[in-house]
Protein backbone atom coordinates (compact mmCIF):
# COMPACT_ATOMS: atom_id res chain seq x y z
CA UNK A 1 0.00 0.00 0.00
CA UNK A 2 1.29 3.42 -0.90
CA UNK A 3 2.10 5.89 1.84
CA UNK A 4 -0.22 8.42 0.21
CA UNK A 5 -3.17 6.11 0.73
CA UNK A 6 -2.05 5.34 4.26
CA UNK A 7 -2.14 9.01 5.25
CA UNK A 8 -5.91 9.14 4.85
CA UNK A 9 -6.44 6.18 7.14
CA UNK A 10 -6.76 6.38 10.88
CA UNK A 11 -4.35 4.28 12.98
CA UNK A 12 -7.24 1.89 13.78
CA UNK A 13 -7.96 1.42 10.08
CA UNK A 14 -4.30 0.84 9.32
CA UNK A 15 -4.05 -1.70 12.12
CA UNK A 16 -7.14 -3.54 10.91
CA UNK A 17 -5.98 -3.59 7.30
CA UNK A 18 -2.69 -5.17 8.34
CA UNK A 19 -4.67 -7.67 10.46
CA UNK A 20 -6.94 -8.54 7.53
CA UNK A 21 -4.11 -8.63 4.98
CA UNK A 22 -2.32 -11.30 7.02
CA UNK A 23 -5.39 -13.54 6.64
CA UNK A 24 -5.96 -13.08 2.92
CA UNK A 25 -4.66 -15.67 0.49
CA UNK A 26 -2.26 -14.20 -2.04
CA UNK A 27 -2.82 -14.88 -5.72
CA UNK A 28 0.03 -17.06 -6.90
CA UNK A 29 1.96 -14.81 -9.30
CA UNK A 30 4.29 -17.53 -10.59
CA UNK A 31 1.47 -20.01 -11.22
CA UNK A 32 -0.63 -17.32 -12.91
CA UNK A 33 2.32 -16.27 -15.10
CA UNK A 34 2.83 -19.87 -16.18
CA UNK A 35 -0.86 -20.40 -16.97
CA UNK A 36 -1.03 -17.08 -18.85
CA UNK A 37 2.08 -18.02 -20.85
CA UNK A 38 0.66 -21.43 -21.69
CA UNK A 39 -2.83 -20.29 -22.72
CA UNK A 40 -1.70 -17.05 -24.37
CA UNK A 41 0.95 -19.01 -26.24
CA UNK A 42 -1.54 -21.65 -27.33
CA UNK A 43 -3.93 -19.01 -28.67
CA UNK A 44 -1.08 -17.37 -30.61
CA UNK A 45 0.12 -20.73 -31.93
CA UNK A 46 -3.41 -21.51 -33.06
CA UNK A 47 -3.49 -18.10 -34.78
CA UNK A 48 -0.22 -18.93 -36.51
CA UNK A 49 -1.63 -22.22 -37.77
CA UNK A 50 -4.70 -20.37 -39.07
CA UNK A 51 -2.50 -17.84 -40.86
CA UNK A 52 -0.50 -20.58 -42.53
CA UNK A 53 -3.69 -22.34 -43.62
CA UNK A 54 -4.99 -19.10 -45.13
CA UNK A 55 -1.71 -18.64 -47.00
CA UNK A 56 -1.54 -22.26 -48.19
CA UNK A 57 -5.16 -22.92 -49.17
CA UNK A 58 -6.75 -19.51 -49.76
CA UNK A 59 -4.00 -17.70 -51.69
CA UNK A 60 -3.35 -15.03 -49.06
CA UNK A 61 0.11 -13.56 -48.69
CA UNK A 62 1.92 -13.17 -45.38
CA UNK A 63 0.85 -9.50 -45.35
CA UNK A 64 -2.83 -10.07 -46.07
CA UNK A 65 -3.40 -13.29 -44.10
CA UNK A 66 -3.50 -11.35 -40.82
CA UNK A 67 -7.02 -10.02 -41.37
CA UNK A 68 -8.89 -13.31 -41.89
CA UNK A 69 -6.82 -14.88 -39.08
CA UNK A 70 -7.87 -12.20 -36.58
CA UNK A 71 -11.47 -12.37 -37.83
CA UNK A 72 -11.54 -16.14 -37.28
CA UNK A 73 -10.18 -15.79 -33.74
CA UNK A 74 -12.78 -13.12 -33.00
CA UNK A 75 -15.65 -15.28 -34.31
CA UNK A 76 -14.50 -18.23 -32.20
CA UNK A 77 -14.22 -16.01 -29.11
CA UNK A 78 -17.64 -14.47 -29.61
CA UNK A 79 -19.14 -17.95 -29.94
CA UNK A 80 -17.34 -19.18 -26.80
CA UNK A 81 -18.50 -16.05 -24.94
CA UNK A 82 -22.08 -16.55 -26.08
CA UNK A 83 -22.09 -20.18 -25.02
CA UNK A 84 -20.77 -19.13 -21.61
CA UNK A 85 -17.45 -20.95 -21.87
CA UNK A 86 -14.96 -18.11 -22.24
CA UNK A 87 -15.24 -16.72 -18.71
CA UNK A 88 -14.49 -20.16 -17.27
CA UNK A 89 -11.37 -20.48 -19.43
CA UNK A 90 -10.36 -16.95 -18.36
CA UNK A 91 -10.74 -17.71 -14.64
CA UNK A 92 -8.10 -20.39 -15.11
CA UNK A 93 -5.92 -18.66 -17.70
CA UNK A 94 -5.91 -15.09 -16.31
CA UNK A 95 -3.93 -12.71 -18.50
CA UNK A 96 -3.47 -15.48 -21.09
CA UNK A 97 -6.96 -14.89 -22.49
CA UNK A 98 -7.02 -11.12 -21.94
CA UNK A 99 -3.95 -10.00 -23.86
CA UNK A 100 -4.55 -11.53 -27.31
CA UNK A 101 -7.25 -10.17 -29.65
CA UNK A 102 -9.62 -12.76 -28.14
CA UNK A 103 -9.72 -10.78 -24.88
CA UNK A 104 -10.83 -7.68 -26.70
CA UNK A 105 -13.52 -9.58 -28.60
CA UNK A 106 -14.73 -11.01 -25.29
CA UNK A 107 -15.14 -7.58 -23.67
CA UNK A 108 -17.28 -6.34 -26.59
CA UNK A 109 -19.33 -9.55 -26.89
CA UNK A 110 -19.94 -9.96 -23.14
CA UNK A 111 -21.07 -6.35 -22.71
CA UNK A 112 -23.40 -6.66 -25.72
CA UNK A 113 -24.99 -9.85 -24.42
CA UNK A 114 -25.31 -8.42 -20.92
CA UNK A 115 -27.22 -5.35 -22.01
CA UNK A 116 -29.43 -7.02 -24.63
CA UNK A 117 -32.32 -6.77 -22.14
CA UNK A 118 -32.31 -2.97 -22.44
CA UNK A 119 -32.86 -3.11 -26.19
CA UNK A 120 -30.61 -2.60 -29.22
CA UNK A 121 -30.18 1.17 -28.89
CA UNK A 122 -30.00 1.94 -25.17
CA UNK A 123 -28.68 -1.53 -24.33
CA UNK A 124 -26.41 -3.18 -26.89
CA UNK A 125 -25.41 -0.03 -28.81
CA UNK A 126 -24.63 2.13 -25.80
CA UNK A 127 -22.94 -0.53 -23.71
CA UNK A 128 -21.03 -2.53 -26.33
CA UNK A 129 -17.85 -0.54 -25.71
CA UNK A 130 -18.39 -0.15 -21.96
CA UNK A 131 -15.22 -2.11 -21.22
CA UNK A 132 -13.48 -1.89 -24.60
CA UNK A 133 -14.06 1.86 -24.99
CA UNK A 134 -11.10 2.92 -22.92
CA UNK A 135 -8.84 0.52 -24.84
CA UNK A 136 -9.96 2.10 -28.12
CA UNK A 137 -9.76 5.70 -26.86
CA UNK A 138 -6.34 5.43 -25.25
CA UNK A 139 -5.06 2.92 -27.82
CA UNK A 140 -5.81 5.27 -30.73
CA UNK A 141 -4.42 8.25 -28.85
CA UNK A 142 -1.16 6.46 -27.94
CA UNK A 143 -0.77 5.34 -31.55
CA UNK A 144 -1.20 8.98 -32.60
CA UNK A 145 1.46 10.18 -30.12
CA UNK A 146 3.91 7.46 -31.15
CA UNK A 147 3.39 8.30 -34.83
CA UNK A 148 3.93 11.98 -34.07
CA UNK A 149 7.25 11.17 -32.39
CA UNK A 150 8.30 8.97 -35.31
CA UNK A 151 7.40 11.63 -37.91
CA UNK A 152 9.23 14.34 -35.93
CA UNK A 153 12.38 12.25 -35.64
CA UNK A 154 12.25 11.42 -39.38
CA UNK A 155 11.75 15.12 -40.26
CA UNK A 156 14.78 15.99 -38.16
CA UNK A 157 16.79 13.56 -40.21
CA UNK A 158 16.89 10.66 -37.79
CA UNK A 159 16.54 6.92 -38.67
Amino acid sequence: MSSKKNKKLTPTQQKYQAFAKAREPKPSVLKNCFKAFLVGGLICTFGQVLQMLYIKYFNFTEDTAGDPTVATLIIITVLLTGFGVYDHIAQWAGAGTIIPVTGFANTVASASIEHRSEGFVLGVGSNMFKLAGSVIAYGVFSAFVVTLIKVTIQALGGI
Partner: protein
Amino acid sequence: MLKGHQSWIFNSKPVIISSAAVGGPFEAEGAISEDFDMLHQDIWLGQDSFEKAEKKLLEQACEISIQKANMKKEDIDFFISGDLMNQIISSSFTARTIGAPYLGIFGACSSSMEGLAIGSLLIDSKSANYVLAGASSHNGSVEKQFRYPTEYGSQKPPTAQWTVTGAGAALLAKEGKGPRVTSATIGRVIDMGLSDPFNMGAAMAPAAVDTIEAHFRDLNIEPSYYDLIATGDLGTIGHQITGDLLTDHGLHIPKDIFNDCGLLIYKKEQPVIAGGSGCACSATVTYGHLLNRMIKGELNRILVIATGALLSPLSYQQKESIPCIAHAVSIEMS
Protein backbone atom coordinates in the same frame (compact mmCIF):
# COMPACT_ATOMS: atom_id res chain seq x y z
CA MET B 1 -38.09 -2.76 24.19
CA LEU B 2 -34.68 -1.12 24.01
CA LYS B 3 -31.98 -2.97 25.88
CA GLY B 4 -28.50 -1.56 26.21
CA HIS B 5 -27.41 0.77 23.43
CA GLN B 6 -28.72 -0.78 20.24
CA SER B 7 -30.68 -3.95 20.95
CA TRP B 8 -34.36 -4.72 20.99
CA ILE B 9 -35.92 -7.38 23.21
CA PHE B 10 -39.21 -8.66 21.82
CA ASN B 11 -41.19 -9.55 24.94
CA SER B 12 -44.11 -11.02 22.98
CA LYS B 13 -41.67 -13.18 20.98
CA PRO B 14 -43.11 -12.90 17.46
CA VAL B 15 -43.45 -16.27 15.75
CA ILE B 16 -42.12 -17.16 12.31
CA ILE B 17 -45.22 -19.15 11.32
CA SER B 18 -43.81 -20.01 7.92
CA SER B 19 -40.80 -19.33 5.75
CA ALA B 20 -39.64 -20.11 2.24
CA ALA B 21 -36.41 -20.27 0.27
CA VAL B 22 -36.17 -20.31 -3.53
CA GLY B 23 -32.90 -20.86 -5.41
CA GLY B 24 -31.30 -21.15 -8.82
CA PRO B 25 -29.45 -23.97 -10.58
CA PHE B 26 -26.15 -23.36 -8.80
CA GLU B 27 -27.86 -23.50 -5.41
CA ALA B 28 -29.58 -26.73 -6.48
CA GLU B 29 -26.13 -28.33 -6.68
CA GLY B 30 -25.17 -26.87 -3.31
CA ALA B 31 -24.78 -28.36 0.13
CA ILE B 32 -28.26 -27.53 1.46
CA SER B 33 -30.39 -27.99 -1.67
CA GLU B 34 -32.95 -30.12 0.18
CA ASP B 35 -33.82 -27.14 2.39
CA PHE B 36 -35.06 -25.05 -0.54
CA ASP B 37 -38.81 -24.99 -1.21
CA MET B 38 -38.29 -24.43 -4.91
CA LEU B 39 -35.22 -24.72 -7.14
CA HIS B 40 -34.93 -23.51 -10.71
CA GLN B 41 -32.94 -25.22 -13.44
CA ASP B 42 -32.96 -22.07 -15.57
CA ILE B 43 -31.07 -19.03 -14.31
CA TRP B 44 -33.44 -16.85 -16.37
CA LEU B 45 -36.59 -18.44 -14.86
CA GLY B 46 -38.09 -18.10 -18.32
CA GLN B 47 -37.86 -14.30 -18.09
CA ASP B 48 -36.09 -12.08 -20.60
CA SER B 49 -33.77 -10.35 -18.12
CA PHE B 50 -31.87 -11.20 -14.94
CA GLU B 51 -33.69 -8.40 -13.13
CA LYS B 52 -37.08 -9.87 -13.98
CA ALA B 53 -35.82 -13.30 -12.92
CA GLU B 54 -34.80 -11.91 -9.53
CA LYS B 55 -38.23 -10.35 -9.04
CA LYS B 56 -39.79 -13.72 -9.88
CA LEU B 57 -37.63 -15.43 -7.27
CA LEU B 58 -38.79 -13.03 -4.57
CA GLU B 59 -42.43 -13.29 -5.66
CA GLN B 60 -42.25 -17.07 -5.45
CA ALA B 61 -40.58 -17.05 -2.02
CA CYS B 62 -43.32 -14.72 -0.72
CA GLU B 63 -46.14 -16.74 -2.29
CA ILE B 64 -44.83 -20.06 -0.97
CA SER B 65 -44.41 -18.59 2.48
CA ILE B 66 -48.00 -17.26 2.49
CA GLN B 67 -49.33 -20.59 1.13
CA LYS B 68 -47.50 -22.62 3.77
CA ALA B 69 -49.28 -20.63 6.47
CA ASN B 70 -52.63 -21.27 4.72
CA MET B 71 -53.13 -17.58 4.27
CA LYS B 72 -53.87 -15.18 1.44
CA LYS B 73 -51.96 -12.14 0.21
CA GLU B 74 -54.74 -9.94 1.61
CA ASP B 75 -54.00 -11.16 5.14
CA ILE B 76 -50.53 -9.59 5.15
CA ASP B 77 -50.49 -6.30 7.08
CA PHE B 78 -47.04 -5.19 6.02
CA PHE B 79 -44.43 -6.40 3.58
CA ILE B 80 -40.81 -5.48 4.32
CA SER B 81 -38.16 -6.29 1.76
CA GLY B 82 -34.76 -5.35 0.43
CA ASP B 83 -32.37 -6.33 -2.34
CA LEU B 84 -29.23 -5.14 -4.09
CA MET B 85 -30.66 -3.66 -7.26
CA ASN B 86 -30.63 0.10 -7.88
CA GLN B 87 -33.73 1.60 -6.23
CA ILE B 88 -34.48 -1.90 -4.79
CA ILE B 89 -36.64 -2.72 -7.82
CA SER B 90 -36.95 -6.45 -7.04
CA SER B 91 -38.56 -5.68 -3.68
CA SER B 92 -40.78 -2.85 -4.87
CA PHE B 93 -42.00 -4.76 -7.93
CA THR B 94 -42.76 -7.77 -5.73
CA ALA B 95 -44.68 -5.47 -3.39
CA ARG B 96 -46.73 -4.41 -6.42
CA THR B 97 -47.67 -8.07 -6.96
CA ILE B 98 -48.45 -8.76 -3.31
CA GLY B 99 -50.41 -5.57 -2.85
CA ALA B 100 -49.77 -5.29 0.88
CA PRO B 101 -48.62 -2.05 2.53
CA TYR B 102 -44.90 -2.02 1.91
CA LEU B 103 -41.70 -0.80 3.52
CA GLY B 104 -38.70 -0.99 1.22
CA ILE B 105 -35.38 -1.25 3.00
CA PHE B 106 -31.79 -1.18 1.89
CA GLY B 107 -29.08 -2.69 4.03
CA ALA B 108 -27.31 -4.42 1.13
CA CYS B 109 -26.84 -8.08 2.11
CA SER B 110 -27.96 -7.33 5.67
CA SER B 111 -31.48 -6.56 4.37
CA SER B 112 -32.72 -10.03 5.32
CA MET B 113 -32.14 -9.59 9.05
CA GLU B 114 -32.98 -5.87 8.92
CA GLY B 115 -36.40 -6.83 7.56
CA LEU B 116 -36.88 -9.58 10.14
CA ALA B 117 -35.91 -7.21 12.98
CA ILE B 118 -38.26 -4.42 11.84
CA GLY B 119 -41.05 -6.94 11.22
CA SER B 120 -40.64 -8.38 14.72
CA LEU B 121 -40.70 -4.88 16.15
CA LEU B 122 -43.99 -4.15 14.35
CA ILE B 123 -45.54 -7.34 15.73
CA ASP B 124 -44.11 -6.79 19.22
CA SER B 125 -45.44 -3.23 19.37
CA LYS B 126 -48.89 -4.50 18.26
CA SER B 127 -48.62 -2.38 15.10
CA ALA B 128 -49.25 -5.44 12.93
CA ASN B 129 -50.69 -8.93 13.10
CA TYR B 130 -48.90 -10.44 10.11
CA VAL B 131 -45.67 -9.17 8.59
CA LEU B 132 -43.88 -10.70 5.63
CA ALA B 133 -40.12 -10.08 5.47
CA GLY B 134 -38.15 -10.93 2.35
CA ALA B 135 -34.85 -10.44 0.56
CA SER B 136 -33.46 -11.51 -2.79
CA SER B 137 -30.42 -11.45 -5.03
CA HIS B 138 -29.50 -12.85 -8.44
CA ASN B 139 -25.99 -13.69 -9.53
CA GLY B 140 -26.49 -12.26 -13.03
CA SER B 141 -28.18 -9.00 -12.04
CA VAL B 142 -25.74 -8.27 -9.20
CA GLU B 143 -22.63 -9.01 -11.24
CA LYS B 144 -24.02 -6.81 -14.01
CA GLN B 145 -24.66 -3.90 -11.67
CA PHE B 146 -21.64 -4.06 -9.39
CA ARG B 147 -18.91 -5.75 -11.40
CA TYR B 148 -18.43 -6.91 -14.97
CA PRO B 149 -20.73 -8.53 -17.53
CA THR B 150 -21.34 -12.16 -16.53
CA GLU B 151 -19.57 -13.55 -19.60
CA TYR B 152 -16.58 -11.22 -19.32
CA GLY B 153 -13.38 -13.20 -18.96
CA SER B 154 -11.53 -11.64 -16.08
CA GLN B 155 -9.80 -13.68 -13.43
CA LYS B 156 -11.34 -13.25 -10.00
CA PRO B 157 -8.93 -13.06 -7.06
CA PRO B 158 -9.01 -15.69 -4.27
CA THR B 159 -10.95 -13.27 -2.05
CA ALA B 160 -13.90 -12.91 -4.47
CA GLN B 161 -17.29 -14.36 -3.58
CA TRP B 162 -20.20 -15.84 -5.53
CA THR B 163 -23.55 -14.02 -5.38
CA VAL B 164 -26.38 -16.36 -4.46
CA THR B 165 -29.30 -16.60 -6.89
CA GLY B 166 -32.37 -16.89 -4.74
CA ALA B 167 -34.86 -15.34 -2.40
CA GLY B 168 -36.08 -15.96 1.10
CA ALA B 169 -39.20 -14.86 2.94
CA ALA B 170 -40.49 -15.27 6.48
CA LEU B 171 -44.00 -14.69 7.74
CA LEU B 172 -44.20 -13.25 11.23
CA ALA B 173 -47.24 -13.41 13.49
CA LYS B 174 -48.23 -12.61 17.07
CA GLU B 175 -48.84 -16.21 17.92
CA GLY B 176 -48.71 -19.63 16.37
CA LYS B 177 -46.35 -22.54 16.03
CA GLY B 178 -42.75 -22.11 15.03
CA PRO B 179 -39.43 -20.51 15.91
CA ARG B 180 -39.70 -17.21 17.75
CA VAL B 181 -37.73 -14.02 17.29
CA THR B 182 -36.54 -12.96 20.73
CA SER B 183 -34.15 -10.08 20.16
CA ALA B 184 -32.30 -8.07 17.56
CA THR B 185 -29.22 -5.87 17.54
CA ILE B 186 -29.09 -3.08 14.98
CA GLY B 187 -25.59 -2.43 13.68
CA ARG B 188 -23.59 0.74 13.19
CA VAL B 189 -21.93 1.59 9.89
CA ILE B 190 -18.26 0.63 10.13
CA ASP B 191 -15.66 1.60 7.55
CA MET B 192 -12.14 0.33 7.90
CA GLY B 193 -11.02 1.97 4.67
CA LEU B 194 -11.04 -1.10 2.46
CA SER B 195 -12.06 -0.38 -1.11
CA ASP B 196 -11.72 -3.64 -3.03
CA PRO B 197 -15.16 -4.90 -4.17
CA PHE B 198 -13.55 -8.29 -4.77
CA ASN B 199 -12.77 -8.55 -1.08
CA MET B 200 -16.07 -7.93 0.67
CA GLY B 201 -15.41 -10.43 3.45
CA ALA B 202 -12.53 -8.43 4.90
CA ALA B 203 -14.46 -5.16 4.48
CA MET B 204 -17.55 -6.48 6.30
CA ALA B 205 -15.82 -8.41 9.09
CA PRO B 206 -15.35 -5.36 11.41
CA ALA B 207 -19.07 -4.54 11.11
CA ALA B 208 -19.93 -8.11 12.07
CA VAL B 209 -17.53 -7.94 15.04
CA ASP B 210 -19.03 -4.64 16.20
CA THR B 211 -22.61 -5.96 16.10
CA ILE B 212 -21.73 -9.31 17.72
CA GLU B 213 -19.94 -7.53 20.57
CA ALA B 214 -22.85 -5.09 20.95
CA HIS B 215 -25.33 -7.98 21.08
CA PHE B 216 -23.57 -9.84 23.89
CA ARG B 217 -22.85 -6.60 25.76
CA ASP B 218 -26.43 -5.28 25.51
CA LEU B 219 -28.09 -8.58 26.38
CA ASN B 220 -25.44 -9.49 28.92
CA ILE B 221 -25.19 -13.09 27.75
CA GLU B 222 -22.36 -15.40 26.67
CA PRO B 223 -21.87 -16.89 23.18
CA SER B 224 -22.55 -20.33 24.69
CA TYR B 225 -26.18 -19.21 25.09
CA TYR B 226 -26.60 -20.03 21.39
CA ASP B 227 -26.40 -23.37 19.59
CA LEU B 228 -25.31 -21.60 16.45
CA ILE B 229 -23.98 -18.15 15.65
CA ALA B 230 -24.05 -17.61 11.89
CA THR B 231 -22.75 -14.59 10.04
CA GLY B 232 -24.43 -13.65 6.75
CA ASP B 233 -22.00 -13.72 3.87
CA LEU B 234 -18.46 -13.18 5.07
CA GLY B 235 -16.99 -16.14 3.20
CA THR B 236 -13.86 -17.99 4.23
CA ILE B 237 -11.63 -14.94 4.64
CA GLY B 238 -14.13 -12.64 6.33
CA HIS B 239 -15.26 -15.38 8.68
CA GLN B 240 -11.69 -16.18 9.68
CA ILE B 241 -10.97 -12.49 10.30
CA THR B 242 -14.16 -12.07 12.36
CA GLY B 243 -13.32 -15.07 14.56
CA ASP B 244 -9.75 -13.90 15.12
CA LEU B 245 -10.80 -10.30 15.76
CA LEU B 246 -13.42 -11.37 18.32
CA THR B 247 -10.85 -13.55 20.11
CA ASP B 248 -8.48 -10.57 20.01
CA HIS B 249 -11.18 -8.47 21.69
CA GLY B 250 -11.70 -11.09 24.37
CA LEU B 251 -14.93 -12.61 23.09
CA HIS B 252 -14.32 -16.23 22.25
CA ILE B 253 -16.93 -18.05 20.18
CA PRO B 254 -16.28 -21.81 20.03
CA LYS B 255 -15.55 -22.94 16.45
CA ASP B 256 -18.26 -25.61 16.47
CA ILE B 257 -21.07 -23.09 17.00
CA PHE B 258 -19.66 -20.34 14.77
CA ASN B 259 -20.43 -20.53 11.07
CA ASP B 260 -21.24 -18.41 8.02
CA CYS B 261 -24.22 -18.69 5.65
CA GLY B 262 -21.83 -18.10 2.75
CA LEU B 263 -19.93 -21.23 3.74
CA LEU B 264 -23.00 -23.37 4.47
CA ILE B 265 -24.80 -22.89 1.17
CA TYR B 266 -22.35 -24.39 -1.34
CA LYS B 267 -20.32 -27.55 -1.54
CA LYS B 268 -16.55 -27.31 -1.23
CA GLU B 269 -15.97 -28.43 -4.81
CA GLN B 270 -18.19 -25.72 -6.31
CA PRO B 271 -16.15 -22.90 -7.89
CA VAL B 272 -17.37 -20.15 -5.55
CA ILE B 273 -13.84 -19.05 -4.56
CA ALA B 274 -14.28 -17.56 -1.05
CA GLY B 275 -17.96 -18.49 -0.57
CA GLY B 276 -21.47 -17.22 -1.17
CA SER B 277 -22.68 -13.64 -0.86
CA GLY B 278 -25.72 -11.48 -1.63
CA CYS B 279 -29.01 -10.73 0.13
CA ALA B 280 -30.27 -14.20 -0.70
CA CYS B 281 -27.29 -15.83 1.01
CA SER B 282 -28.38 -15.15 4.59
CA ALA B 283 -32.07 -15.12 3.56
CA THR B 284 -32.18 -18.58 1.96
CA VAL B 285 -29.86 -20.21 4.48
CA THR B 286 -31.76 -18.79 7.47
CA TYR B 287 -35.31 -19.12 6.14
CA GLY B 288 -34.59 -22.54 4.64
CA HIS B 289 -31.79 -24.52 6.22
CA LEU B 290 -31.50 -22.99 9.71
CA LEU B 291 -35.23 -22.72 10.48
CA ASN B 292 -35.72 -26.29 9.21
CA ARG B 293 -33.02 -27.48 11.59
CA MET B 294 -34.73 -25.62 14.44
CA ILE B 295 -38.10 -27.18 13.65
CA LYS B 296 -36.45 -30.62 13.49
CA GLY B 297 -35.09 -29.96 16.97
CA GLU B 298 -31.41 -29.91 15.99
CA LEU B 299 -31.01 -26.28 17.05
CA ASN B 300 -32.72 -24.40 19.85
CA ARG B 301 -31.27 -20.93 19.85
CA ILE B 302 -29.54 -19.27 16.94
CA LEU B 303 -28.12 -15.84 16.25
CA VAL B 304 -27.91 -14.72 12.63
CA ILE B 305 -25.74 -11.71 11.86
CA ALA B 306 -26.41 -10.59 8.30
CA THR B 307 -23.61 -8.42 6.94
CA GLY B 308 -23.92 -5.82 4.22
CA ALA B 309 -21.49 -3.76 2.16
CA LEU B 310 -23.08 -0.36 1.54
CA LEU B 311 -21.23 0.58 -1.61
CA SER B 312 -22.55 1.59 -5.00
CA PRO B 313 -20.83 1.04 -8.36
CA LEU B 314 -20.40 4.82 -8.55
CA SER B 315 -18.86 5.22 -5.09
CA TYR B 316 -16.40 2.46 -5.93
CA GLN B 317 -15.38 4.11 -9.20
CA GLN B 318 -14.88 7.38 -7.33
CA LYS B 319 -12.40 5.52 -5.12
CA GLU B 320 -14.54 5.69 -1.98
CA SER B 321 -13.99 3.03 0.64
CA ILE B 322 -16.71 0.50 1.49
CA PRO B 323 -18.88 1.29 4.54
CA CYS B 324 -20.33 -1.87 6.03
CA ILE B 325 -23.12 -2.84 8.40
CA ALA B 326 -24.37 -5.93 10.25
CA HIS B 327 -27.70 -6.67 11.92
CA ALA B 328 -28.15 -9.54 14.36
CA VAL B 329 -31.41 -11.36 15.04
CA SER B 330 -31.84 -14.04 17.64
CA ILE B 331 -34.32 -16.84 16.93
CA GLU B 332 -35.33 -19.42 19.55
CA MET B 333 -37.61 -22.44 19.75
CA SER B 334 -40.00 -22.05 22.64
